[in-house]
């Protein structure tokens, strides 16, 4: 570690998880510890549910705001699927601190649909007759609300097979209510949010220095769920993996959080330090 000149961290999450603030706090800490500092951020879309990431570099010789893909010392993930998305930047020594916090993108739900297994389907049309959104489209049921939008028939029978159309809402009521006598309907997710335990396994499969924990729960214990990003900074300080001094980081956190949330954030930071100090990782 002594001969290492430059250090690279990547903070990732979604809008509202405190990515930019955490990166700013780390940047100021690095400056106070005598380093040059560079960050590169993606903002703009953050408030509209987009991914947010901030690359933070500090050291003695560096100039540019981006590291080489793979040359990452620390990955801090404030949302678990964002950790998964950014595993392409890590190497086998990268320290990963990730919260199990999940924010499912709304678009996952709007990309749900159904698939018909043509080997089983006989085109009986029972699914069409029992489709709830289709009832509204055909006005075969009366809704008291005048403003229900259905975009068309949800499926049709062509050449003896039932075909799912775009207007299917993906509610899977037909599967749950078992309306198909031949079990020919399957749920189909064009985009999928993988289960948290499987994401965790993926992380374990590619990295060894990892701390995956529920930062939200620790933050709630400290007094406010919004302090989850401070918990993660505390864990980083506790692990002592990159040359940022714990006390400087703690002071910088205090400098950057709103005054009324100071107590909670100090608590959150210290709880994080406690968690981090239990680990003793080695570079190989």
């Amino acid at each position, binding site marked *: 570690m002594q001969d290492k000149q430059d250090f690279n961290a990547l903070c990732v999450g979604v809008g509202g998880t405190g990515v930019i603030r955490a990166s700013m706090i780390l940047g100021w800490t690095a400056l106070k510890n005598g380093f040059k*500092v560079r960050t*590169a951020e993606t903002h703009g879309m953050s408030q509209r549910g987009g991914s947010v990431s901030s690359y933070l570099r500090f050291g003695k010789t560096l*100039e540019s705001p981006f590291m080489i*893909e*793979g*040359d990452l010392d620390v990955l801090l993930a404030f949302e678990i699927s964002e950790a998964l998305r950014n595993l392409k930047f890590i190497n086998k020594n990268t320290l990963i601190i990730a919260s199990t916090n999940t924010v499912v993108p709304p678009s996952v739900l709007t*990309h749900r649909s159904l698939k018909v297994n043509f080997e089983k389907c006989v085109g009986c049309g029972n699914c069409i007759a029992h489709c709830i959104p289709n009832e509204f489209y055909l006005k075969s049921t009366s809704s008291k609300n005048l*403003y229900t*939008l259905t*975009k068309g028939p949800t499926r049709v029978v062509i050449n003896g097979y039932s075909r799912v159309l775009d207007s299917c809402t993906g509610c899977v009521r037909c599967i749950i209510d078992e309306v198909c006598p031949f079990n020919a309907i399957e749920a189909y997710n064009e985009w999928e949010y993988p289960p948290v335990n499987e994401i965790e396994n993926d992380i374990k499969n590619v990295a060894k220095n990892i701390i995956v924990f529920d930062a939200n729960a620790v933050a709630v214990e400290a007094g406010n769920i919004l302090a989850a990003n401070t918990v993660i900074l505390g864990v980083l300080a506790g692990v002592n993996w990159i040359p940022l001094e714990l006390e400087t980081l703690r002071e910088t956190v205090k400098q950057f959080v709103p005054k009324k949330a100071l107590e909670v954030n100090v608590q959150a930071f210290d709880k994080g330090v406690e968690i981090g100090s239990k680990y003793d990782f080695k570079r190989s």
Partner: protein
Amino acid sequence: MSMPFYALDKPGEKGVVLGNEAFARGIFESGMMVAAGYPGTPSSEIMETLSIIHKFHPNFKLEWSTNEAVAFQVALGASMCNARAFACMKHVGLNVAADAFMTAAYAGAHGGFVVLSADDPNCYSSQNEQDNRYYGLHALVPVFEAINVQEAKDVIKYAFDFSEEHSTLVMMRTMTRLNHARGDLTLGEINKIEDRTYNFDKDRSRWTFLPSNARIQRLKQIERIEKLRQLSDEFPFTQLNIKDNAKIGIISSGVPYSYLNDAILKLNLTEKVSTLKMGMVFPQPEELIGKLFDNSEKIIIVEELEPFQEDFVKKLAFEKGYNLEIVGKKYFQRNAELNLGLVINGLTKAMEIPNPFVDLKVKTEDLHVASPRPPVLCAGCSHRSTYYAIKLIEQKFKKNFVYSSDIGCYTLGFYKPIEAIDTCICMGASIGMANGISKLHDGPVLAIIGDSTFFHTGVPGLIDAVYNQNDVLVVILDNSITAMTGMQPHPGTGIKITGEPGTKIPLESIVRGAGVKEDHLWIVDSNDLKETVKAFEEAINTEGPRVIISRHPCTLYERSLKKGEEITPVVIDREKCKNCMICIKNFGCPAITLVDDNIVSIVERQCTGCGVCINICPYEAIDYKKG
């Protein structure tokens, strides 16, 4: 509010700031007197930072202008009055200002005049990634670039001195990676703006471009750029670094130079390559490039986007009679932005040396793929309600609607589940294109445009529609703020950049003034679905140029105004809800989600209580939370 670091009068103090904050600081330090701009990512925070600095140092003037052309003209006028003047815009904004820019470049500057163009390689938040260095070449205006946050401040500050000393416009060309990067900054001295007199410079033949004057100014412009060409070799932010034993010479500038710097260190090439870092990227330092030629067998040009320097350097080598290998775009991609990995990759290939950094990464091919996270309209966004009403009417009329659209949050209506955007080219184009489409298309033609965009360049299109009696329905989505770029006020808000009251210009007064008849104008509250649907139904049944102003404040803005106020969220009545997902799939508010994979429920923390979804559930299962 305590004084932020970048407003402190403490030369020598160090801090970490955003690139845009550094630009604003440099502009402030220079003694800039008048700044004008139009918001546009990645440039918006420069004017916003200036407005914060203004709170503590209120003796300069600044405004959000109606569009970039006006912003440029405002700054030009101020320069004519001996003021140091600044115009701020994103790269495509300069297209809007280009008419004035091309001719003002002949006359040059009186007070130091810097126009900043924030380019956006990779189109992070833009419709294209045009390379605005060509504007410098086109208008014969010198173009400066900075490599990091410290230089961002230093170069732009110097740009004002340079502009004033040589009576030239200066273009500061930046890129997203600098505007939205943070880095350490050491503050400098603040020039006093009181030390000069401000009066209109009554040099009439200089500022009045009658042909007889223009011909004279044109000659002066050519003379000026020739002089500046000599100065490029002595530009303080341009550095030639010749290594005695090096056979390779590398030319770069801006953020790509920072990658080059790190690549040379990483690859241990410090003694093996000579470098030329350009601070003035146009006109180029011909003598320094010649020295690099003398000391190299091969020249590599590391630049983002177009082969601007490569073309020039090849031409120069030809003129000076050098027979050198000169490479650039052969090894560095022309699209998107560069990064350290790409520069190392291109450099090692161009130099035919091994790249030791190819196998750093872990293998991720067999892992799950994180679901994409495209941006969506916010929970409670009033645009969603308007779009939903349009979709209901389209369903009812079963006609082939065309949605000619524009630039703003509402462009997100392209994505599922709304899918009510068919075109988006540039600011204000929605109405112009709709005018053309309406001449040929069989079906209703809608032009969908936001409030700020309408003020920006939408108005001429509407006047065209009225004048030529085009059969278009202009839908102005009025969320009463410039939302996409981060809540900047505009003429419709009646609030100035400083937060002081200005004169509020209601959209409807412009629409009426443009000649839209009273029975061809509907003004509705977007979140009142009944009223909005009715207006669309009537409008589709009406012919000729007509306008719906669908108005409701941006939900983020509304919440920031009502901070601390209790919100009554909606809830789902579990007994009535059949989990049909019509609300999710066809309305798509992010505050409505699934739990346990198929139970529809409300995310209370996200719900803004707008109540629009109450009207869309077929089972009337959604209502406000009681008690």
